[in-house]
């Protein structure tokens, strides 16, 4: 990291020196930038030709490369598959270019510049792009090879003496995504920006994804060069992944929203968003074709196809699973189609017109293609009229890649909006449950929870488990979502729907005599068809059998028992031993079992989430899994998500990034601070989703439900002072408390009432709700002036002010602060980039970043820092404003 800081300084040197040179040049600075642009931008076309998979670097440049604009429109039908290897090569090329430039920068700048500058003047700034393109193309086609050769020569000539620090940095292993982002943001040098734009391809996706908000915010709000550098990467990733596409689209929308409406409409961010949402950025054709050849997914069409059950005759028709499904549903619909095509078409209309409902059918083009294959093969086997109609009707459903997921998100948001109109929590909860059960009808589908870290399909929402969260006017709610793990949610087949009641249709279908199918036999004679079996045996008997109760000759048994009871009246031969039980045992078991169940919260209609959140996650998973028709599948998983509608989560996202960054810094520096960054999904500037912290309830809920002090609650939950469990919980508490105190201080997190601090089952505290950070605080009342929230209750849990744990707490804070200070740039960078073009309240005023930097106290010695920590802890503990604020919250919102 020391190296990093050093490099940072050098970089500044380089750029400043360049600027000096530019200042010296006679022309205006803008044009001079242009002039220098013309050369280095040529490499930016680097990554494109390499997609035509030209292995040699020099040839790669010489092939006619599609100009930048093609990509930016997003309509280019280039079949680009960029793998990292190729991308790396491209980077190397560009790096050479940059080296060349540097070489020239020193040697040729003086001579070449005036001529070029003169040239640009005539063309004018509006044509800059095209001109540059022409130039770049020209260079790409003709000059590049010679350039490379020249540069190679030059490099040898100049050798290391002239090589800049920057180049060495870019080539070094230390150059990571964080630095890349930093240079992209700070460098005014288009060559560098373009280089980094290409370098993005060589980073791991996860690493880049972390900085996606930064990248996109830069794309939206910074100058074109930065945008041009970023765009190819974004477009490339969008082509590859639906998830990435949607994330981009959402973020672009959200971060564009602060612009003035008129500029917003024409901004590049909005344009890119449109391109993504229009789904033009599809994977290239060959890829789709390749996938189409994969085994066809069993397309289970809830409405369109497999409507009226399965016909028994087809049931025995053994083919591949998917095949069978298709033929069955087709044949059962044949009659309908023949007699009145309306059935099919109306259902199609229904599907396509209902905008609020999910379009399950819109799985992918793939399923339709494979379906088509099936249908045709089936039609060839058994030519029947009506098949084609079915087929055509099916094909009418145009699957759109992004649609299912967008509709899914849209319906979740719609629910939130409607809930907000209802007055009481109880009504909200009931409504939520019923809305979700309707949503279930459209599942499974090719939809997923973006907050999850693995590929999956959502198969069911256990609607009765959903709860409304505490919020005064908005209606955020928490849902649990059952998903099935899959290899790739874009290409893996969507799971087949299993009805809620888990009926095993095989039995009832196969047992039924097929009357609908062979009417001719019956029509010929009026004699009664033999009664196959009475109806309850055929289809009303419960297949599950779990609760099925066989009557083990109950009557004879009781007769036996009577004989035992009244021996004198009836003589018994085969008497069984009577079982005696003690009433005391029953009573004892009852109280024991109740005592053994983990402490639960009582139901409170005003706080429905308390009970749901208190239930241990594993317990909940087990319970939901048992009740789910999909629970038996090995790849079943349970996820949960908070849906927020009407809330801006951009600050939350920013806080998440900072927390995540600090977490990894502390991990790297081996400081055992514990924090829990929870994932945030920004969908628009007023909606989004949050990954809930499991096994955690708010301190408010703890206190209200248990009516205990925090320490007593710890004792109740974890055991006595000396127990292992208590000590572990206490340590967890201290480590998390120290972590969050630092976070709260550094980010100036406000609104710290007990409803915003969670306590998990292991004793960690977790701060949530970062609505007031950095420069903003609630209504600016001036409450919460202390560095962070540290109440006496917290100190009590740590064992009092004189305890070892309390010292440990302060020590942790010091270590944490020192570690954070060491990597300050990484933290600042995240915040600083997001400030671009932002109207978020946390950036209010001009000194946000400066103040943030100051809170790292770069100038203090470690001893001084220790004093600072002591002061802050002391001040926070004694802070009257903390108490005031808690009191204020209790009075106004009833938060304890």
């Amino acid at each position, binding site marked *: 990291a020391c190296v990093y800081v050093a490099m940072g300084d050098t970089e500044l040197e380089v750029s400043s020196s360049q600027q000096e040179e530019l200042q010296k040049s006679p022309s205006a600075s803008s044009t001079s930038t242009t002039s220098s642009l013309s050369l280095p931008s040529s490499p930016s076309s680097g990554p494109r030709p390499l997609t035509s998979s030209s292995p040699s670097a020099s040839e790669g440049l010489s092939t006619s490369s599609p100009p930048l604009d093609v990509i930016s429109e997003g309509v280019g039908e280039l079949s680009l598959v960029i793998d990292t290897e190729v991308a790396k090569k491209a980077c190397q090329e560009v790096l050479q270019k940059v080296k060349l430039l540097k070489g020239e920068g020193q040697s040729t700048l003086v001579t070449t510049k005036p001529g070029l500058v003169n040239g640009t003047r005539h063309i004018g700034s509006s044509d800059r792009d095209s001109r540059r393109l022409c130039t770049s193309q020209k260079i790409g086609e003709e000059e590049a090879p010679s350039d490379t050769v020249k540069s190679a020569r030059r490099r040898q000539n100049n050798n290391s003496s002239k090589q800049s620090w920057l180049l060495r940095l870019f080539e070094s292993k230390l150059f990571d995504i964080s630095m890349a982002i930093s240079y992209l943001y700070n460098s005014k040098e288009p060559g560098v920006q373009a280089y980094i734009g290409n370098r993005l391809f060589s980073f791991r996706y996860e690493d880049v994804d972390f900085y996606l908000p930064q990248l996109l915010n830069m794309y939206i709000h910074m100058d074109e060069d930065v945008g041009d550098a970023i765009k190819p990467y974004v477009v490339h990733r969008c082509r590859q992944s639906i998830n990435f596409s949607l994330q981009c689209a959402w973020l672009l929308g959200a971060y564009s929203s602060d612009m003035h409406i008129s500029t917003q409409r024409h901004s590049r961010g909005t344009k890119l968003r449109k391109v993504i949402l229009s789904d033009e950025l599809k994977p290239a054709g060959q890829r789709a074709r390749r996938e189409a050849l994969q085994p066809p997914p069993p397309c289970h069409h*809830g409405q369109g196809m497999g409507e*009226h*059950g399965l016909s028994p005759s087809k049931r025995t028709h053994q083919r591949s699973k998917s095949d069978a499904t298709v033929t069955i549903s087709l044949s059962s619909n044949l009659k*309908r189609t023949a007699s009145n095509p*309306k*059935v099919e078409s*109306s259902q199609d209309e229904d599907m396509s017109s209902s905008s609020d409902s999910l379009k399950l059918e819109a799985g992918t083009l793939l399923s339709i293609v494979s379906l088509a294959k099936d249908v045709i093969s089936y039609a060839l086997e058994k030519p029947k009229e009506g098949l084609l109609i079915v087929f055509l009707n099916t094909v009418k459903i145009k699957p759109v890649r992004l649609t299912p997921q967008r509709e899914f998100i849209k319906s979740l948001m719609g629910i939130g909006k409607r809930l907000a109109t209802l*007055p009481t929590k109880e*009504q909200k909860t*009931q*409504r939520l449950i*019923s*809305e979700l*059960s*309707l949503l279930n*009808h459209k599942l499974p589908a090719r939809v997923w929870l973006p907050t999850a870290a693995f590929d999956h399909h959502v198969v069911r929402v256990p609607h*009765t488990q959903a709860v409304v969260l505490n919020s005064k006017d908005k209606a955020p709610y928490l849902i649990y979502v059952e998903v099935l793990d899959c290899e790739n949610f874009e290409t893996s087949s969507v799971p087949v729907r299993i009805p*809620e*009641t888990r*009926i095993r*249709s095989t039995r*009832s*279908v196969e047992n*039924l*005599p097929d*009357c*609908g199918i062979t*009417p001719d036999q*019956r*029509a010929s004679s*009026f004699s*009664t068809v033999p009664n196959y079996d*009475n*109806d309850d045996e055929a*289809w*009303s*008997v*419960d297949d599950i059998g*779990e*609760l099925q109760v*066989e*009557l083990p000759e109950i009557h004879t*048994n*009781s007769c036996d*028992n*009577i004989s035992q*009871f*009244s021996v004198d*009246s009836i003589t018994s031969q085969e008497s069984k031993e*009577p079982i*005696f039980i*003690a*009433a*005391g045992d*029953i*009573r004892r*078991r*009852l109280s024991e079992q109740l005592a053994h169940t983990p402490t639960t919260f009582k139901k409170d209609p005003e706080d429905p989430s308390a009970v*749901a959140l208190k239930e241990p996650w594993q317990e909940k998973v087990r319970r939901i899994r048992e*009740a789910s028709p999909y629970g038996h599948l090995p790849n079943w998983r349970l996820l949960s998500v908070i849906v927020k509608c009407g809330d801006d989560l951009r600050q939350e996202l920013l806080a998440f990034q900072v927390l995540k960054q600090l977490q990894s810094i502390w991990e790297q520096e081996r400081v055992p601070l514990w924090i829990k960054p929870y994932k945030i999904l920004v969908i628009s500037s007023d909606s989004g989703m949050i990954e809930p912290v499991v096994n955690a309830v708010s301190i408010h809920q703890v206190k209200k439900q248990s009516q205990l002090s925090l320490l007593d609650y710890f004792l109740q939950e974890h055991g006595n002072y000396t127990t292992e469990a208590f000590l572990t919980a206490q340590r967890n508490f201290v480590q998390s408390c120290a972590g969050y105190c630092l976070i709260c201080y550094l980010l100036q997190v406000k609104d710290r009432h007990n409803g915003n601090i969670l306590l998990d089952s292991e004793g960690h505290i977790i701060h949530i709700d970062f609505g007031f950070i950095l420069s903003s605080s609630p209504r600016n009342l001036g409450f919460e002036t202390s560095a962070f929230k540290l109440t006496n209750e917290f100190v009590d849990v740590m064992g009092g002010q004189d305890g070892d744990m309390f010292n440990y707490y302060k020590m942790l804070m010091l270590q944490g602060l020192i570690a954070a200070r060491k990597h300050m740039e990484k933290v600042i960078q995240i915040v600083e980039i997001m400030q671009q073009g932002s109207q978020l309240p946390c950036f209010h005023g001009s000194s946000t970043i400066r103040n943030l930097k100051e809170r790292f106290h770069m100038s203090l010695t470690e001893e001084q820092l220790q004093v600072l920590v002591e002061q802050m802890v002391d001040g926070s503990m004694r802070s009257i404003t903390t108490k005031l604020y808690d009191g204020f919250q209790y009075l106004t919102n009833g938060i304890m």
Partner: protein
Amino acid sequence: MAQEKKAGLLRRTSSSKKPLKEKVVLMYDEIFTKDDPAKTNPRFWDELFLMKVNLEYLEGKLESLDGDEVMVVKDNINSLFHHCVLALEEEHQIKVVNALQTLCALFRGVHQKNKSATGFDIINMLVGFDKAELRMKDLMESLDSLLCGDGSESLKSLCLKLLLCLVTVTDNISQNTILEYVMINSIFEAILQIVSDVSSRGQHGYDAVVLLALLVNYRKYESVNPYIVKLSIVDDEPTLDGLGMVVHQALTEYNRQYKNKEEENHGGFFSTLTSMVGNMFIADTEEKLSVQTNEAILLALYEAVHLNRNFITVLAQSHPEIEMTAAPVTPIPTTPTSLGTTPPSLDMMHNPELPLDPNLQTSNLLITFLKYSSIVMQDTKGNFPIAILNEHRLNSARLCLIILTCIAEDQYADAFLHDDNMNFRVNLHRMPMRHRKKAADKTIPSRPLVCAVLDLMVEFIVTHMMKEFPMDLYMRCVQIIHKLICYQKKCRIRLHYTWRELWSALINLLKFLLSNETTLLAKHNIFQLALQVVSLFNMFITYGDTFLPTPSSYDELYYEIVRMHQVFDNLYCMVLRVSTNVGQWKEPASKVTYALVNVRAIINHFNPKIESYAAVNHISQLSEDQVLEVVRSNYDTLTLKLQDGLDQFERYSEQPKETAFFKELVRSISVNVRKNVSLNTLSQDVLLKEFSSIS
């Protein structure tokens, strides 16, 4: 219109003297001759279907035929039928309308005449035996495409009317041989389509569901009915939901009407007066009527619950949308007043905008059904003595309990009944009684749905101890409770329910059985019921640890038993007496004797302890807490006997036990539907008149 009709009637009556007849009547007359009417007039059939149908005349004509005449005109009737079927294909919708009505008259007329004739004869007379298969196939296909097509809604309505007419021409649906063709040429899918589509469901849902319920019952026990088969395997949620919604709306409508009436009755002087005046006209027939027609809907609900496992999910499916948005747009969509077989509802005037009652917003079929059941099971019509359940109410109540039995047996249903997250306030109808305050208007807490079911059962138990003892209903009621408790025991669900109310209701029931032993024994096997009740207590006593909510609830159980020990003592004496005598009740009574062993052990164990406690502490009357204290401290010396099969029950099966009931029920529904269809067909002309002027 009505006047015109009257004029027509007048003219016809006078026509016996003067041969001044409508043209259509003349044409009918031509049909009822030996000769082919088309011979003289090749355009005869074309013209006929352009004329407005005179249903009464046509039906009357058919009815008046005697045996020989039938044979003479058979060819012409066959031909009329044939041309009706052909006319259904016509583009000219007037012809289609007239053809449908003519068919209606044909079916009805022929059956009226030939009540005793075999189905084959009727088919022969109507269609002609040789061509029947083909003609009926054509007819069904035409109806099917009319029902599913884009055509006018009143045409669809007429089609359903015709089908209802056809299905109900005989009292016993299974004797309606012509339905064999409806079995072969299934219109099941058409019915489902109507039900699943939002707009058509609104207009025709009721008729379609009634039709389905009836068709399912055609020769249910003798042959394989494709409608049963198909209904049992439907798994398309929108369709099942649609079916549920029709039932939901019909029941909601009934509940609403009932509530309105009740409010009227409890209103001030003025409203009492108006309702008195109103009652003079509406009379009780209407009240009965509405209950009767709801039997058809209840039957449909039963068939869906019983046959289709997927339908269970629909019960819990809340319908936030209908009540909030859809309903005001199309007021009472399921009860089309002019067309429906539905009872004449209190129509628009009494149907103001659905109030934004917060309790109304989210409801589900099960809740509505429970409310409905609570009304049907109680008869609070002030006019009747409380005790009298008329036959229809009895049938409805029985059907409600059967449906609840099916629900209580279904694991999925149990799961959502007991789901702690699905809490609802269910306002059951409670009968005002002398010894309890009217409803007390305490706000019902929001609880899992099973609490409402239990409440309903408790309510039934306490309100039906009367001379005309509904033994069968009591059995079902206690069995439902038993099934629910079995589920709770199995799944270890600790329901926070005031079990005490149930216990005291059951004990009171035993008390009633004892005090009316002689009268009741004349008609019923009361030991069976007593055994069930005692078994329930045994469930609580021996398995209470698995499902009771708190240890103190177990104490309360003992308290209640000890407190009411007299009842158990008397019961024991009674069953002991009967079981020692020789007679038909010997065995059932001895079963009860055995079942009472634990209860008696408890009483014999605690009573002396309580008495000695009182003696030691010199208290004459122990308080509840004191008794509970004694109970708590003396458990350990009490030994109980585990009894077999307590948590087992016989599963519900329609055959053979319920066959007779359903046959009778379907018969009464058939008669009722037929009556309503015929009543309304006339007013249908109004609509058709409009229709003809438009087209």
